[in-house]
């Protein structure tokens, strides 16, 4: 559906994006992560035809952003990280203005605006001035604007930035709904827990380079180490020495006299082996759990040593 083909963007001598090369399947929700200056916004601006690549290309459904940008714009709904407002304009007028900009026929416009306001739960704010909306409401209205022309691809730049927890949850639910409708969504965010909940795929960028691209599941399971929490019934100093000398152990963090966090390599069998060793040495194990791999840890691990 979306093909980044050796995409490169230079600003003078500075390389903002260096050979991004990957294919995003139709209907995927792709998280674009990386530190500030990694090239996330540049990738999105190239995809939305706001800037032209220095070399390479982006194809949306086979259509090139460099040779047919006007066709690409029909297929893309863009939600920038900032919500620009016009003075003295109501929410309905705001959507009506952009509907005109997308040449949506006048006959279908009122119903479409009502439907979209309903979808983003802003029907009651129809006649409220856009400037008076809260940050969360404004973001939802911006999403409704991006959906006006029913695009196949949604490009969302930091949609959850500055939102309170409730607004973030509401936005996440909305994006789940859009994913279920079959939209391909490219979303950048610094809130990795949100992305972990939303995304099917992840693109990790660092200093303009593609560091990793895969499905979320594959990336999480590809981690080279795992964290094991061992909780004992009573303080057991022998456990520290035991675990430290275990073959697969990387590090041991004695958080409490009865609680140790073990960072280890190896697979499920190695984990079972550690439990077996503890039992054999009469350690009063109350809890032995492998912590789920988080996106934060995956990101740190994948980008470790790149700076």
């Amino acid at each position, binding site marked *: 559906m979306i093909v980044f083909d050796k995409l490169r963007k230079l600003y003078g001598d500075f390389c903002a994006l260096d050979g991004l090369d990957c294919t995003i399947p139709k209907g995927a929700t792709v998280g674009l992560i990386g530190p500030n200056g990694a090239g996330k916004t540049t990738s999105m601006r190239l995809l*939305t*035809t*706001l800037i*032209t690549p220095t070399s390479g290309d982006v194809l949306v459904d086979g259509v090139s952003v*460099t040779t047919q*940008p*006007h066709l690409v*714009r*029909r297929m*893309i709904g*863009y939600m*920038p990280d*900032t*919500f*620009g*407002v*016009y*003075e*003295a*304009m109501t929410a309905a*007028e705001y959507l009506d*203005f*952009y509907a*005109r*900009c*997308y*040449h949506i*026929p*006048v006959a279908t416009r009122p119903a479409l605006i009502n439907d979209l306001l309903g979808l983003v739960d802003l029907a009651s704010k129809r006649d409220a001035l856009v400037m008076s909306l809260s940050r969360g409401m404004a973001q939802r209205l911006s999403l409704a*604007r991006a959906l006006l*022309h029913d695009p196949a691809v949604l490009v969302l730049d930091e949609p959850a930035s500055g939102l309170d927890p409730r607004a973030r949850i509401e936005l996440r639910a909305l994006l789940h709904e859009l994913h279920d409708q079959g939209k391909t969504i490219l979303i950048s965010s610094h809130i990795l827990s949100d992305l972990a909940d939303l995304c099917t795929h992840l693109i990790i960028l660092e200093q303009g380079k593609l560091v990793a691209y895969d499905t979320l599941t594959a990336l999480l399971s590809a981690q080279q180490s795992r964290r094991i929490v061992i909780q004992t019934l009573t303080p057991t100093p022998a456990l520290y020495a035991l675990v430290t000398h275990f073959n697969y152990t990387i590090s041991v963090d004695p958080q409490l006299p009865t609680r140790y966090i073990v960072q280890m390599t190896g697979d499920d069998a190695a984990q079972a082996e550690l439990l077996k060793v503890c039992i054999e040495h009469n350690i009063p194990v109350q809890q032995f759990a492998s912590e789920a791999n988080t996106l934060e840890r995956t990101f740190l691990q994948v980008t470790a040593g790149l700076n």
Partner: protein
Amino acid sequence: MRRDINPILIRELRGRMRTPRAFWLLVGFLTAVAGTASLVYTASYLSSDGQSSGNNTIGNTVFFTLIVTAMAVLTIMAPVMAAGSIAGERERQTFDLLLTSQLSAGTIIFGKILATLAYCGLLLSAMTPLVAMTFLMGGVDLGELFIMYAIISASVLLFTCCGIYWSTRATTPLTAIGFALATVLSFLFGLPLLAVTIPTIWAQFLNDTAVLDVVANIGLATHPFIAMYLTDTAIHQQQIWMHEVTIKGVTFTLPATWILCIIESWLLSIAFVVAAMRRIWPQSTR
């Protein structure tokens, strides 16, 4: 299928007319125009010693004052309003949304130009009762009125397009307004200066500078205030469509100054619009 009016035009007019600023600008414009015309009328009436034969002259003087004052105000207002338009979109961070929509660069630029022209047209229309009073005094005919309005319209278009061009170059409205005003004022003061000095300097090197004088004459026609003055004089000499210029004993017949003014203003406006379109959307020119 019914075709929509330019959405940018609709939004600009709606946004502009909903703010109190639009009302106060209108009040300010009419106050400036009416105040100046009243002063000139009073001075003219007192100097004519109340003779009825002086009414035609008074009517013409007041009419000319109204037109020149309106032109002076619009010379500032048009580039300021236009310069704030696209730079304002950038500042409000709404410009990217327009660029990623289905609007072409032309639609965006023309929408902004039309919105500024529409507001300037409103100001000129609001001045109609004042202009109508000069008809009661006499000394002004309908043809002269149309010609003067045509000069104002062409010049306002030129200054608007200049403002739009700078609006596409600057990142903030304030910068765009600064550059637009600097360009317009340089043009208004620089053009007469160049038209006078260059032929004089050139005369030191060449014996015959007649061609250069004709070129200077044609170039000066773009200047709205000079065009108005020359047109007013020509109309009273019954030279509405063509006028004769005698330079160093040689007489040249040229199109009337107001025709040159309109043609030159349109050509310069087109140049500004093309440059503006290339600025906002380099790929649209491919």
